[in-house]
C-alpha cells in the first residue's frame, strides 16, 4: 500500500497557513489600532506611542466636520434605503420564488447584474442621469442610487427564505379566504420576519459603508459619513491628522455597532457575498 504523506511536512504546511492568516489578522488589527491611537493622541510624530492622550480631537472633529448633521443624514439615507428596498424587494422575491413564468431567467439576470457589476462602472452613467433629471446632489438622489444594488440584494437574500415556507401553508390560508394582501400581512410577513430582518440589517450596513454610489451622486447636504471621511482624508494636509482619525473612529464605531447587531441574526458570509451561488 502506498505510504503516507510525510507528517512533518504536513505539520509545517499547516503552521505556515496559520502563520499567514495570523499575519493578516495582526496587521489588520494593528492598522485599526493605529487609527484609534492617533485619534486619541495629542501629537504623534516619530515615536512608537504618542507622548500624550486626549479626547479633544473628537470634539473638534464633531464641530469641524459637522458630524451631527452628517450622522443624521447618514441614518436617514440608510433607513430610507432599507425600507424602500424591502418594500420593493419582498414582493418581487415572493413572485420569483413562487412562480415560473416566461422570461423568468431574464428577470433573474436583471436582478443579478447590479450585484455583479461594480458600483463605479454603472455609477457614472447613473449619476449622469440623476444630474440631468435634477436629482443629482440631493438626498433623494443618493437614496435612489443606493437602491439600485440593494433591491436586488434583498430579492436574492429573501428567495431562499421564501422557498423554505411550505406552499401548502399559503394554500391553506387561501382556502380559508385570504387574498394576496391579507396573505402577506397575516402569514408571509410573520413567517419571513427573520429573513426580512436579516436583509434589512445587511442593507443598512452596506449602505452605511457604500462609498462609490453616494460619492458620485451626493451634494453638500447629502453626504454620508463615509463620503465626508473621504473628503477629509483626501484633504488631510489641510486638517489635523488626529481630527481626521477621530472622524474615522466615529465612522468605524457606527459600522461596527451595526455589524454586531447584524451578527446576531445573520452569518458573516452573507454580509460579504453579493451574488448567490447558483452553480
Amino acid at each position, binding site marked *: *500500500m*502506498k*505510504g*503516507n504523506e510525510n507528517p512533518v511536512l504536513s505539520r509545517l504546511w499547516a503552521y505556515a497557513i496559520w502563520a499567514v492568516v495570523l499575519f493578516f489578522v495582526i496587521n489588520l488589527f494593528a492598522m485599526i489600532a493605529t487609527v484609534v491611537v492617533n485619534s486619541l493622541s495629542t501629537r504623534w510624530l516619530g515615536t512608537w506611542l504618542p507622548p500624550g492622550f486626549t479626547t479633544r480631537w473628537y470634539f473638534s472633529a464633531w464641530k469641524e466636520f459637522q458630524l451631527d448633521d452628517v450622522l443624521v443624514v447618514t441614518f436617514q439615507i440608510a433607513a430610507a434605503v432599507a425600507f424602500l428596498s424591502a418594500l420593493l424587494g419582498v414582493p418581487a422575491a415572493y413572485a420569483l420564488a413562487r412562480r415560473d413564468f416566461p422570461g423568468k431567467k431574464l428577470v433573474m439576470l436583471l436582478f443579478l447584474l447590479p450585484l455583479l457589476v461594480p458600483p463605479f462602472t454603472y455609477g457614472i452613467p447613473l449619476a449622469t442621469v440623476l444630474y440631468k433629471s435634477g436629482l443629482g446632489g440631493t438626498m433623494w438622489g443618493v437614496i435612489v442610487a443606493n437602491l439600485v444594488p440593494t433591491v436586488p440584494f434583498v430579492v436574492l437574500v429573501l428567495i431562499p427564505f421564501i422557498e423554505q415556507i411550505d406552499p401548502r401553508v399559503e394554500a391553506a390560508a387561501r382556502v380559508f379566504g385570504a387574498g394576496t394582501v391579507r396573505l402577506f400581512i397575516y402569514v408571509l410577513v410573520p413567517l419571513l420576519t427573520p429573513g426580512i430582518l436579516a436583509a434589512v440589517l445587511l442593507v443598512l450596513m452596506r449602505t452605511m459603508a457604500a462609498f462609490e454610489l453616494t460619492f458620485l451622486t451626493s451634494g453638500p447636504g447629502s453626504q454620508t459619513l463615509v463620503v465626508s471621511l473621504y473628503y477629509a482624508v483626501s484633504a488631510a494636509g489641510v486638517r489635523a491628522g488626529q481630527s481626521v482619525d477621530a472622524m474615522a473612529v466615529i465612522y468605524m464605531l457606527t459600522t461596527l455597532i451595526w455589524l454586531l447587531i447584524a451578527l446576531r441574526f445573520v452569518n458573516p458570509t452573507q454580509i460579504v457575498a453579493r451574488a448567490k451561488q447558483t452553480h
Partner: protein
Amino acid sequence: MAIRLRAFERLRLDNVSRNFGTLNALKNVTLDVRRGEFIALLGPSGCGKSTALNCLAGLLPLTAGSIWLDDKRLDQLKPEARGFGMVFQNYALFPHMTARRNVAFGLMMQRRPKAEIEQMVNEALALVRLTALGDKLPGQMSGGQQQRVAIARAIVVQPPLVLMDEPLSNLDAKLRLEMRAEIRRIHNLLGSTTIYVTHDQDEALSLADRIVVLRDGMVRQVGTPEELYARPAHADVAEFMGYRNLLPSRASGNGDGRMTVTFGNANLIGTPIEAVGSGDATIAIRPDDLTPSADAPISAVVETAEYRGRDFYGTARTSDNVELFFRSDRKVASGETVRLGADPTRVLVYARGVT
C-alpha cells in the same frame, strides 16, 4: 480470475469503543471475522453499525480498543494505508471522472503500470456487467449503474476486506432485490470477505453468513441467519427480527425446556430463551406463528385484516387492550372474536425488563 484478493485469516475487533463527546456510539465491541465470510452488521438507526464500519475503514479514530488483521495492528493506520475496499451509501463516485477512471483511481494511487490498470479495470467492469458504460460520467447513469461502478471500484484494488455501508438503501425495491443477488454473486465469485451494514433484516437474512445485531453501540447477538430468525437471544433482538408480538406476562412452571406463561388470562406454553425464574417475563411471537384455532388460549377481537393473497395478516385487541398481530388462513372480519395461539416452540420467553 485475475482479480485475486489478498489473503488473511482473521479480522478481529477487540473491545472497540468510539465516543462522540458524551455519546458512546460504540461500547466494547468485540468481533471475529474469518476469511471468506459475509458478515452483516444489523440494527436500527443509531445503533452504531455505520460508526463501526467507519472505524474499520479508518475514517473515524477509535476512542479505545484495537483492530487486528491477523497479527498486524490496524487502528493506528490512516484509511489510505489500510487497503480496504469501501462502498458508500451514496456511492461517492467522483462526479468529474468517467466510470473507467473512477474504477482505475485506486490502482492509480498504487502506481501500477498503465497496461495493468487497463486490464484490471476491464475485468472489474465485466464482473459488474458494466463494460458498455465505461466512458460515461456518473451523472449520466442510473442509481443501479452507479452502484455497480462503486462496487467495481472497491474490488478492483484487490482488498482483503470489502466494506459496504447500506449500499442498497437508495434504490427502489425491485432494483434492491436484483443488486442484492449481484452483491452476493460477486462475493462468492471472488471469495472475498465482506462486512455489510444494513437496517433491513430481510437483506441481512438473505445475504449474510453471520449476522451481528447491534443496539446502542453494543453487540446484542452474533449468529447465523437461522439462529437469529428462530432463536433471537434477547427481546429487543427478537423485536428487530420481526417478532412483532412482545407480550408482558408472568412465568411459572418449568419443565424440560418448556415453560408456562400467563398472558392476561390465557395460559401458554413457551420456550425459555433467557434464564427466567418465576416472575415477570416477555413473550415474543412472530405474527406468522400466531394463528386462530378453536381451542387456542388467547381471546381477542379482530380490528383489521389485510388480504395478502395466500392468507390474511391482521391485528386484534385483547380485553386488556393489548394489540396482537396474527395470521389467518381463512378470512376474518373486523369485530369478530377469535382465539389465537401458537406452537410452544414458536413462543419465545425472555426475562422482562432486560433489553
